[in-house]
């Protein structure tokens, strides 16, 4: 499988701040790749390096087989970008901006443009300064989605969109994937990531700390178990992989590393199980764990 984006050991400093600290990232061709991390982790910096807007201090980055700093113009013909903070020219209408960005990328699909305007319920005749945040975001989204490109780079594209528009956005991204396009999606909205992404990378303090499919990541985390037993359990606390054990007489509550569930359950069965509830890790827990470790 080929890589649309492959980055290794990327470093970028701003004065004394190390925004990217040896970032590795691999986005395969044709996948929707989620890019997650707390505010200030370096997501936007990484994206700007990939777009040739910032120059990395060290490390290598390949984008669609080219060098993002040197081959900017040729690479930019093949990608579309939606910034997280869309700023429009105050006296240009949304329609003018969409057409301008489309032409600069080498033309856009007229029919698709009209269809997207309708689906996103965007009035293209309004001036840039009169759009709300969500509507400015839609202008950039329509321009990107109506362009004929191989790679979509979306930096928190749905901030400011209402839930209905969020659904339209998700449908559009699925269509893009079905057409074989690659999408790098930076996002904070876990439901969106869960619904769309084939694989995710979690970035923290300028470094990718976890990467893989959501199923892979779930394996790395813990399942909560609470049980009522026939006899008080012995030695549960000393078992590998058991955390935060609370025992009150015959009741126990604890968390267990997902790859250690087998031996722990065997111990519970030995003590006699009356009731048992097990809760798989939610994405929130997964991410909170990664995000909070940063502090």
């Amino acid at each position, binding site marked *: 499988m080929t890589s649309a984006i492959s980055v290794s050991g990327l470093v970028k400093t701003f004065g004394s701040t190390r925004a990217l600290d040896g970032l590795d990232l691999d986005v395969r061709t044709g996948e929707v790749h989620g890019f997650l991390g707390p505010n200030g982790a370096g997501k936007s910096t990484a994206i700007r390096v990939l777009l040739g807007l910032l120059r990395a201090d060290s490390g290598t980055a390949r984008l669609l087989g080219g060098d993002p700093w040197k081959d900017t*113009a040729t690479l930019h*013909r093949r990608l579309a970008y939606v*910034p997280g903070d869309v700023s429009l020219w105050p*006296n240009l209408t949304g*329609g*003018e*901006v969409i057409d301008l960005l489309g*032409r600069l990328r080498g033309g856009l699909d007229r029919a698709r443009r009209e269809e997207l305007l309708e689906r996103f319920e965007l009035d293209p005749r309004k001036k840039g300064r009169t759009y709300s945040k969500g509507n400015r975001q839609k202008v950039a989204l329509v321009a990107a989605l109506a362009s004929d490109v191989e790679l979509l780079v979306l930096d928190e594209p749905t901030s400011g969109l209402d839930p209905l528009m969020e659904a339209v956005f998700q449908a559009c991204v699925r269509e893009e994937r079905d057409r074989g396009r690659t999408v790098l999606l930076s996002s904070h909205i876990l439901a969106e990531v869960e619904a769309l992404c084939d694989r995710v990378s979690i970035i923290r303090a300028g470094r990718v700390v976890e990467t893989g499919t959501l199923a892979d990541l779930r394996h790395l985390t813990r399942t909560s178990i609470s049980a009522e037993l026939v006899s008080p359990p012995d030695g549960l606390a000393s078992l590998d992989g058991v955390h935060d054990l609370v025992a009150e007489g015959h009741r126990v509550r604890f968390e267990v590393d997902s790859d250690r569930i087998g031996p722990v359950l065997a111990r519970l069965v030995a003590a006699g199980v009356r009731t048992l509830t097990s809760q798989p890790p939610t994405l929130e827990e997964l991410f909170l764990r990664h995000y909070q470790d940063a502090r």
Partner: protein
Amino acid sequence: MIGTLHLVRLALRRDRVLLPVWVFFLVALTYSTATALDELYATPESRVQLSVTANANSAFLAMLGPLHDTSLGGLVVWRWGVFGGLFIAIMALLVVTRHTRAEEEAGRTELVGATVVGRHAPLAAAVVVAGGASLLAGVLQAVALIALGLDASGSFAFGLATASVGLVFTGVSAFTAQLPENSRVSNAIAGAVLGVTYLLRAAGDAAGEAGPAWLTWLSPIGWTEHVRAFGDDRYGVLVLPLVTFAVLVGVSAFVVTRRDVGRGLFAARPGPARGTIGGPSGLAWRLQRGSLAGWSLALFAAGAIYGSVAGAVGQMVEENPALARIVQRIGGADAMVDAFFATVTQLLGLVSSIYLVQAVLRLRSEETSLRAEPLLATPVSRTGWVASHAVFALAGGAVVLACAGLGLGLVHGLRTGDPGAVPRLLGAVLVQLPAAWVVAGVALALFGLVPRFTGASWAVVAGSLVITLLGPALDLGRWVLDLSPFSHVPRYPDVTLGPAAWLTAVALVLLAAGLAAFRRRDLTT
């Protein structure tokens, strides 16, 4: 009005460098003008001599106004009064827009307006800060003159007269901030009003007593002349600017209650659903054309007005035999007309550099507002993007200056019946272009090399203005004069092209350096 005090403190915190620099600059120039004039014209005879020449020379009259009093104070008023008022007005109008329309445009007024802050508080705070800074600058100028041993009443008349121009333009800017939704447009309208104010005064003064002197009564800068500081000290004239200020602020405060936050009095209309802009140059044209048209028109008008007074220089000399003898010694009436055009063409060149720098600075504002980012994420190259705006500085500068030259040449040609005046004066104005390019080159080099300090380009513009216009009178050293590119342009009617060639080369080197640096640097905000 509740919360005004907090907003005043916020504004002072944000302008803690800007305002002191402005006030210091104004006071320092007043002080140094006075000491320089004291040395240059030490004897009463030399002052009388100066007043005869100054009041007979339309070029001096148009630029500086009449010299009413031959005391040192009178000389300071003549030399610095008009420009002091002009600079205080620029400070006031920029400060007001910065804290009213620019804040609304950025959405920060909304953030602040949702707290316990009255509807009128942002406007009131801006007026307090800009008006206060104007008054402070005026009073400190007076103190500086008193410290030099000048008459206290005259010093205060002078200080308050220049401050009054700041007050009027605090009001003008408070009003123009209500009109458009865009702070740039608001500044442009207020700036245009200031330009008209200066030109009305210049037209009224240029022909001396014989001319339409009543025009000066229509101009707030003209009012400062009518105060006649160090002469009659007519404090009563100051009622005019005070009333104007009060009316303008009152009207603005009324408009504030009639419009929504973030909207102007001119409502935005829906535009086309489809765009025809095809590339970076199309976009730059769209963004810059308004400013190009405005500047072309303004400089054509300025040229025409100067062209219309030039003829009066010759007439005046013929009517005054005593003057004619003096003038004969310096080369006759023709030489005086030439001297007038030498000053005017240089002035037009200097003023055009403001347009060029502003066109270059568009690049930086597009970058900091994050609008450059999505563009440069398309196949548009950095060189192409810079070129799309730089062409408005280089070629646009030529257009603006050509308009000035045409205005000057056409009107002077019509009045003297000499069609040859058109190409001659057009050439004389266009020969200023390479010097203006150098200033634009500095701006582009700053943009490429030290983007955070791109704003320092304005210091280069202001420095060139001060050095070239006031340098000779202040008796600055030759090397200081040489710092301004405009000092190297041949003086009319001399049109040797040598300096033009090397100034162009310097400008090109600066441009290339800026572009090369921009291609290598990060986009920053």
